[in-house]
């Protein structure tokens, strides 16, 4: 029965995402219209100037001469058939470009999520267990420092120290393209390239989760059910493992869901610093090239990504917390 209700819960939540994604599409489209300049002026500018007639011709070719709402309806109609348009800049369909870049971004986001959550929870747990000792202070102060350090600076410093000075890691890219590795060699190569970007993107979230986990643990430890557990004769380790840990985890899971969106934002910076061939880097390039079709496609995909991750978090939450009503 519980499985059936989880199934209908997921279905209901999926239905609820449709208006959200529609809203995101419309708002994105309108926002981009507000931005000054368009592809035609950029191309004209790069060509070192062009006649007004040529610019008008370019606009007509891109469909930009039509009224705004017609453009919007066209765009939404195309979306229904998964036609995200054509990137005139990159001379390729937007969908192909996105699918090409989605893998690296998902890889970076996924490892970051796993690293920051697991290490953050572990450090928060340890700090709470060692509360008010020098070990706790060490973890807490480090967390505050990491929390306050800008992402790009961390990235640049890591490159400077570990890639340039020590030469332990590559400075940029996702794999050694001239080595033509195959099989496990390629996996190791990508993992090697992945370390610095992941560390850079993780530190902030790691610090955030560690602080939250510590506070949550300390709060839970003062609650009545913990006294009950002590009165049963459980050891401190048993109390922490069986009772406090899972309760303390709930706010961290909530926070992780909320932060996924900003994780995507952070990956734009990190991908730019490490030349990681992901969506963030593509977004960065297309923004400056006024490649709006591509940019809209990236926004669309990001919105879907965030919605999906939130759905996953909510499902995890239902599994963790029996008090959430599915009905």
């Amino acid at each position: 029965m519980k499985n059936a209700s989880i199934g209908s819960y997921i279905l209901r939540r999926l239905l609820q995402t449709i208006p959200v994604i529609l809203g995101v599409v419309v708002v994105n489209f309108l926002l981009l219209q507000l931005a000054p300049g368009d592809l035609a002026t950029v191309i004209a500018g790069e060509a070192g100037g062009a006649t007004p007639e040529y610019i008008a011709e370019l606009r007509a070719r891109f469909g930009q001469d039509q009224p705004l709402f017609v453009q919007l309806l066209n765009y939404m109609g195309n979306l229904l058939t998964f036609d995200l348009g054509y990137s005139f800049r990159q001379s390729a369909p937007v969908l192909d470009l996105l699918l090409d870049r989605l893998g690296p971004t998902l890889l970076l986001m996924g490892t970051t999520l796993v690293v920051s959550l697991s290490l953050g929870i572990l450090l928060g747990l340890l700090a709470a267990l060692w509360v008010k000792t020098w070990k706790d202070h060490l973890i807490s102060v480090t967390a505050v420092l990491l929390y306050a350090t800008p992402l790009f600076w961390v990235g640049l410093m890591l490159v400077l120290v570990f890639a340039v000075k020590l030469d332990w890691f590559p400075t940029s890219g996702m794999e050694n393209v001239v080595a033509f590795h195959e099989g496990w060699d390629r996996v190791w190569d990508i993992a090697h390239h992945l370390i610095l970007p992941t560390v850079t993107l993780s530190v902030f979230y790691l610090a955030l989760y560690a602080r939250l986990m510590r506070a949550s643990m300390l709060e839970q430890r003062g609650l009545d059910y913990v006294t009950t557990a002590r009165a049963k004769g459980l050891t401190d380790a048993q109390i922490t493992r069986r009772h406090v840990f899972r309760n303390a985890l709930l706010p961290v899971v909530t926070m992780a869901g909320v932060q996924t969106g900003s994780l995507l934002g952070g990956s734009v910076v990190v991908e730019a610093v490490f030349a990681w061939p992901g969506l963030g880097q593509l977004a960065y390039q297309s923004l400056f090239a006024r490649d709006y079709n591509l940019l809209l496609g990236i926004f669309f995909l990001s919105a879907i990504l965030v919605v999906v991750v939130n759905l996953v978090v909510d499902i995890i939450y239902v599994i963790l917390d029996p008090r959430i009503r599915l009905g």
Partner: protein
Amino acid sequence: MTDAVLDIRDLHVALPAWSDRRHAVKGVSLTVNPREILCIVGESGSGKSMMGKAVMGLLPAPHVHADRGQILFEGRDLLTLGAEAMRAIRGGRIAMIFQEPMTALNPLMPVGRQIDEVLEVHTDLDAPARAARVRALIEDVHLPDPDRMMRSYPHQLSGGQRQRIVIAMALALEPALIIADEPTTALDVTTQAQILHLIKELQRKHGTSVLFITHDFGVVAEIADRVAVMRQGEVVEKGPASEVLVTPQHTYTQALVAAVPGLNPRNRPAEVTPPLLEIRNLVRTYRLGGGLFSRGAREVKAVQSVSLSIPKGSSLALVGESGSGKTTMAKCVIGLERPDSGDILLDGKPMTGIGRAQMRAFRRDVQMVFQDPFASLNPRQKVGEIIAMGPVIWGTPRAQALEEARELLRLVGLQPEAADRYPHEFSGGQRQRIGIARALAVKPKLVVADEPVSALDVSVQKQVLELLDDLRKQFGLSMLFITHDLRVAATVCEEIAILQRGVIVEQGSTAEIFANPQHAYTQSLLDAVPGRDWISSLPAA
């Protein structure tokens, strides 16, 4: 006595240096004999809970610790025992039942597993044997459908059911001693009676000794073999229950006994006045889980066609247990909740079916005194400002409103200087007085009091009830008094309406209902009053 189960000798529990007194428990010596229920009675702050925690080794170390005396249990001094040995005793030989069944269980773990943990920690039984024992324990505390119960989570159970689970947990290993720290204070009257009955039944069946901590002499009369009365960390009187209850020696004990609300109903005032508040066929139904894409929302009929009237200057008690719809009624009367149908009239004018702006006119006439004196006052506002805020909104100049606030504080029995302090500096009873002053500040016609004394100790309860009564006479107020406790209702109200599952099952003058209850539910509420026989035997005050 050497054969005592528990022998506490000259126990001192030291408080941290920054607290207002040195010791929470000062030189207490007590014994609990085999198969005996010893009640420790005292108000909050008397050190009675600290005693219980000291025995369990659950004092909030390192700030609070026992610094002198002995706690002898089965021939060993618990205060000198190591952590490992103490753990073997906790849950095994001494078990504890807590006050708050709502928070005493882990919300994320099935209750069967929580009982099972005790067995897992203390015995070598394998899983099937433990499951059988858990099932037997759940049956022992008379919970229905043990197999389903074992898999339930705490939020799926009522307060009384959770307390039964906690009791099952305490009984798991047939401990020699159970410490029960106000185990029924958070429960409804009828649930309280059932739980008290259960504790007594199981205590007899298993031959366990019980150290029972409470503030209510009614409960003592119900359950105790012997009584020890504590005040400010010291035992002021101890002896067999039959003696202490009937001929209390110490003045403090006498005061506590006198504070237990009697069962002497008030009489209806001779003059008949027109009704101030009239409620006609009020209906309020909650629809749960009604989302944009969900079907099959669940309906809860909180109030089903209730009619009431309160004459001017009179007071009516709405008595019911949790879930009876009494708080929904109160919310409808103060306009926080819109009834689905039915009329509420104040002074003949309809309060229902009108707009926001028209509703505002009534806000001043109807004021509320809330249940929780700790949560209902803004902690960042000074008391004077809390009280003056209402009049200022209604146009009284600020200086004058603050002056009136001081006067009101004096009226509710506080110093006028209290106006310059913050709520956290006051005790629960004092805060409830502030809450009353706040309600009176806008000179309402009707006061809705939602369980105003259920969070307070019995002795403080009495003072607050007397205050409400005085003010009512002085201001000519009408009052809708909501409570689950018939004793309290009898003390302050001329009329009583008994509410059960959203329906009024009986209504009439307090005297009539007490003399001759018609409905079976009313009868069960009356029977559930703790220490009923003892209270009736007391000479009327």
